[in-house]
């Protein structure tokens, strides 16, 4: 029972990867669709998508850091 924190870390890492991939997938799909609909607004769409994408990535990385802390610090 003393190694249970590895379980938590592994499950948490899986959840982080799953949800981050889901979020990025939704972003990219929406951006691709709107660029296909309005190719002349591609620059504006890319600019609008960029910032939330980086914020999402930051949350995912933050979660990974905390998972690493669970493994290293117990």
């Amino acid at each position: 029972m003393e190694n249970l924190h590895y379980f938590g870390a592994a499950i948490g890492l899986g959840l982080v990867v799953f949800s981050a991939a889901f979020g990025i997938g939704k972003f990219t799909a929406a951006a691709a669709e709107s660029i296909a609909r309005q190719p002349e607004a591609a620059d504006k769409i890319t600019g609008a998508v960029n910032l939330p994408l980086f914020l999402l990535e930051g949350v995912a990385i933050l979660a990974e850091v905390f998972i690493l802390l669970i493994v290293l610090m117990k």
Partner: protein
Amino acid sequence: MSGTDQAHTSTESGFDAGEVIIGHVSNSSLEHPILHLPTIFGVDFSITKHVLMLGIVATLVFVAITWTVRKYLKQENPVPSGFMTAIEAIVQFIRDSIVLPNVGKKYLNTWTPLILTFFFFIFAANAIGLVPIFDVIGAINRFIFGGSSQDNSFVNSLLHGSTTATGNYNVTAGLATITFFAIILAGSKAHGFINHWKNLAPSGLAWPIYIILIPIEVIGMFVRPFALTMRLAANMTGGHIAILAIVSFVFIFTGLFNSAFAGIGVGALVSVPLAVAISSLEIIVIIVQAYVFTMLSAVFIGMAINVHH
């Protein structure tokens, strides 16, 4: 905090993947610094690996950029050539598509230098972290000059710790602190010191909303630089951990099957191709992370200047 009990699989071969990986992505320890300096006011000024890398990166960026730009400014006809072409393209890209849309025309020339400095420094620090300079020096020392791996020579002290200075949370926290004060300075310059703090929360709402809103905005003020810190350092550390873990397969499998051929086979078929792939992914990551840090700094500075309420 040690990874001593991480790799149960390889205990018999004496190879500890966890300890090796942590040793390669963290700073070298304060007990064995590269250069001993005295303790002043309770702060140990000894030079560890990341401090050395910070110095190398800062010197390299300063000399390369200043020398090239000075030489260009002295020319008779202002046509950029060589390295100056690259610098000019980056400067123009950052000014026109990162700073200008976020900060606005009025304060463009005030904040572009800061953002550019961030970009060049972070990019150089990230990129140098991918180049195994000291490991090559250590290998030459050991196999050509016959140095020992046990003695406390200068070359051996260079081998501890990672070369990515931006992979250290203290370094990125320092960079984010500059952003934190730049945000306050930008707001104060544009609206006055008192008005900057008033701008944090929109005016003209019912008073109970402020009880929730003001703490949220104050927390948000500190969360932004914290997120910048974590994003850059964790991205840099994460990529290196992935590469090292894949390369560690060679030694783990050698220990597991007690034969060098298993290790060589896994290395040739799995580790080296995967490590090459992740290294090339890292080349994209170092550019994107330098871009993200500068862009988010520009966005936050712009949010303090152009208040949308």
